């Protein structure tokens, strides 16, 4: 009789759901069905010149086939004062997962500000670039899902441009395109900025053909290139469009421009 009221059922009978009181067993690790990333589309690019750097990005923000908004900037002034970033000399562009991009921007901005307050001088672009790499690398096991491009002027006053992968690998370059339409824009920049596949006519035949030597482009030309790059990308990529935000960093400071792109 006692067995009736003991917690465990008698052996040999039909199995019941409570037959084993060992509720502690777990059938292995369950996977989370929550995915913490999304792609907000859009594209960015940067080109450095002899005494300037230009960064640009479209202002469309997407979720799947939806347009969240037609104006969501991807370019941010870093280390400036107040809501307008007055006095900033460095620009960060981020494209990919916008929430991570915003978080990254705020961290870098804080760090560059703290550097200025603690050392009494603005952070150099090279130092900022390496710091950004460390921030990204520190979160390599749960990365900021963004492609970052950092622009400014180096110690000699030349245009400086750094591009990153999501886990902090970085490189100083003449030009870089990132984001949804990177594959459309980058070959264009290779050709137009670094003169890839451009040869000096009549310099030889086959392997003797001489590469056209790249040289820093004038600012006017670069601005035209950027606009052409984006108008072309808008034609072929659905996640790119609405508006074009540009920031031009010179020794005078940062000049910001906005122009319309197709909204279709």
């Amino acid at each position, binding site marked *: 009789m006692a067995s009736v009221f003991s917690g465990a059922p008698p052996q040999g009978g039909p199995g019941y759901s409570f037959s084993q009181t060992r509720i502690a067993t*777990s059938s292995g690790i369950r996977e989370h069905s929550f995915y913490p990333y999304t792609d907000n589309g859009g594209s960015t690019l940067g080109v450095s010149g002899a005494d300037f750097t230009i960064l640009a990005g479209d202002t469309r923000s997407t979720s799947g086939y939806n347009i969240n908004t037609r104006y969501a900037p991807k370019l941010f002034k870093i280390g400036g004062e107040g809501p307008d970033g007055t006095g900033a000399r460095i620009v960060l562009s981020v494209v990919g*997962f916008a929430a991570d991009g915003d978080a990254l921007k705020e961290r870098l901005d804080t760090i560059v500000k703290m550097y200025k307050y603690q050392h009494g001088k603005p952070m150099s672009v090279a130092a900022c670039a390496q710091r950004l790499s460390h921030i990204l690398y520190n979160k390599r096991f749960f990365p900021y899902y963004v492609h970052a491009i950092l622009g400014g002027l180096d110690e000699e006053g030349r245009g400086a441009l750094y591009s990153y992968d999501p886990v902090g690998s970085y490189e100083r370059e003449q030009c870089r395109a990132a984001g949804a339409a990177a594959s459309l824009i980058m070959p264009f920049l290779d050709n137009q900025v670094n003169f890839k596949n451009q040869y000096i006519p009549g310099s030889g035949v086959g392997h003797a053909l001489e590469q056209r030597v790249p040289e820093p482009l004038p600012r006017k030309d670069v601005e035209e290139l950027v606009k052409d790059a984006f108008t072309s990308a808008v034609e072929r990529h659905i996640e790119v469009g609405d508006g074009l935000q540009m920031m031009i960093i010179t020794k005078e400071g940062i000049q910001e421009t906005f122009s319309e792109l197709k909204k279709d």
Partner: protein
Amino acid sequence: MNHLPQAWGRPRDDVYGAYDASHLQTSGPQQHTQSPIVTGTSVVAVKFKDGVVIAADNLASYGSLARFTDVKRLRKFNSQVVVGFGGDVSDMQYLDRLLSSLDIRENYSTTETPLNAKNLHTYLSKVMYKRRSDFNPLWNHILVAGLEHENKPFLASVDLLGTTFSSPTLATGFGAHLAQPILRRVVPDEATVESVSREQAVALVKECMKVLFYRDARSLDKYSIAVVTKDGIDLKEDEKLESQSWAFAEGIRGYGTQVN
């Protein structure tokens, strides 16, 4: 019934199969929200020259079941901010309490300027982003409607991933597909906001609520609507959709009783 009191009222293994003990998870990994349970559908909002109009219906669904029909998904924060919640209702209640405690703390001092809509949106976006980064998301898509400095209309959104964006018109959930195109036709950009009157904005939002009720199966014809201006918040929580016309239903073919 048999001689085993432990078995009374419980599913039999030989009928239903053994209970999967992993559901109990006493020593398994810590579980966080994997999906919303009781949910609210779209929230729609539009800016006009003096403020913002925001609306959401009063339904909380449990899957396809219309579980609660008088749920207020627009929450006043203070005299210049309304927060509209789509998504999980229990997470909405948590956030509502969080905002309430924030408001109490903000009012310990009467001298400081009150939090405006922009401030609150920043706060909420940090909360949402922190929770997604902890793999413990608050399953909501939130619209913050109100005023920022100098009584400028403010409207922005934050979702369970911490993604934020702002636009003259916004709609969450189904509304992003159905309402947003209607809203954008009237208010395509920030410049147009200046020429939209309060009456126009209210009518526009009401039209969207109607379209959503026609086509969103998880929606209700009872809704809440709030207008935020510098004179305060006009919140109505018991509105009914007006002048519905189901004439279009006649033309729908291909399923139900009309097969072709």
